[in-house]
Structures are given as C-alpha cells and as structure tokens.
C-alpha cells in the first residue's frame, strides 16, 4: 500500500526532505509544498537526493510561483502539480504522511 508524503520545509535549513526520502518506499509519492518547494530547484544537494530516491516526486506549482522560482529552474524528475493534483494524489494513495 502506498503513501503520499508531504514536505513543507526548506531542505536547506531542515532535514525533513532528507528524512522523508529515506523513509519513503519506491511506490510512494512525495509532494513538496509551502517552503518545501525550494527542494525542487535544480543543481542543488536536494535535487541530487531526489534524483537518487525511489519515490515519485511532485511540487506544488502555486507555492513555487509565490516564491519566484520559475518552472525552468525545477529539477528533472520533479513534476509540477496544482491543488487539484494535490487532492488527486491524496485520494490515489492509501494514507497521507505529513513530515512536519
């Protein structure tokens, strides 16, 4: 059974994304929201961790836009979704685990 994980904190200041990726199974999904969206920026340590992870990784587009991170800065392998996608991901997975 697969889980949707949400991460809402910057990976540059807090370990939540690192810990989430280390605890996610390969059929899980990880969605970065709020300050968590900074994890989507390409060319960073966070992007390397995401590339190495087994889980599928998403990022909330409206939180990216709010922070002035344009989609051409988003690392390969990270899919941008809206709140509609967030609700769908929550429905498609068996449980939601928020990494607070």
């Amino acid at each position: 059974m697969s889980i949707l994980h949400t991460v809402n904190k910057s990976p540059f200041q807090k370990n939540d994304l690192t810990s989430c990726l280390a605890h996610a199974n390969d059929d899980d999904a990880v969605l970065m929201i709020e300050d968590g969206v900074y994890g989507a920026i390409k060319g960073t340590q966070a992007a390397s961790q995401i590339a190495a992870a087994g889980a599928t990784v998403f990022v909330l587009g409206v939180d990216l836009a709010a922070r002035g991170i344009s989609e051409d800065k988003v690392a390969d392998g990270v899919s941008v979704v809206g709140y509609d996608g967030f609700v769908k991901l929550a429905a498609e997975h068996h449980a939601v685990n928020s990494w607070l």
Partner: protein
Amino acid sequence: MSEDMEDGGDIKKFMYMNRKAPYGTIYALEALEVVLIGAAFDQDVSLAFVDDGVFQLTKGQDTAGIGIKNFSPAFKALGDYDVTKLYVEKESLEERGLTADDLMDLVYEDEDDDWAEKPSIRLVSRDELKTVLAEQDVIMSF
C-alpha cells in the same frame, strides 16, 4: 486493508509519528495527549520515534530548572492503555549519540501470554520501519 468487521466496526492501523524533541516545543506532549485519548477507541495503535523524536524517551528527565512539567512518566502508562508498540529507529539513536540504554524502560503486560511483562520499545532499522509505515491506514504526524 487492515479492516476487521468484528464488533460491527472497522479496526484501522493508526501510526503516531514522533519526530520532535520534548520541551523545546509542545508537539511531543500534545501528541501523547492524542495517543492517550485515542487508546479508548480500540484501534491498532503504533508509535514511531524517528529523528529527534527519540529524545522524547530518554530516562532521567528533570525539568525543575526550566519550570515546565516533566511529562515523560506518562510514557510509562501507555502499556496500561494497551499501547504496546513503540518503534524506535536505530539510525536516529546512533546519529544522536544515544543507545537503547539511554531510554526509559517501558513495558506492558501481555494478556495473551499469562500477563508476562514485555518491553514496549521495539528497536528497528530504518528499512524495517519503512515496512511498518507502508502497512498503516492513518498516520498522524507531530
């Protein structure tokens, strides 16, 4: 699905994820309050202590000098509430310079084994914990 129709209701697997240290913030205490209330609902309850969450279980906590109530003794009551599965992640302990000896002795009496006293803390590796997490129906994070 871990559903069970006896007693006319579903039994769900509830996981309380504890990732924060005690006292610096209130999340650990208020998480424990949820667990204690939740124990009355006859669900299949587990707790995980990951990252700084492992600090909640250290023995010898003495809060007199900071003026905050020491709530660590309440973990000892969990066994009486049939909350008997406390998963503590080995990697989190090691990174923090702790061993299982630094943690409180938490036990429960096993009604299926002539009320033998058994440890509630289950030391697990990160990989073992990933398997436990995948089985859960509801994950509450603190």
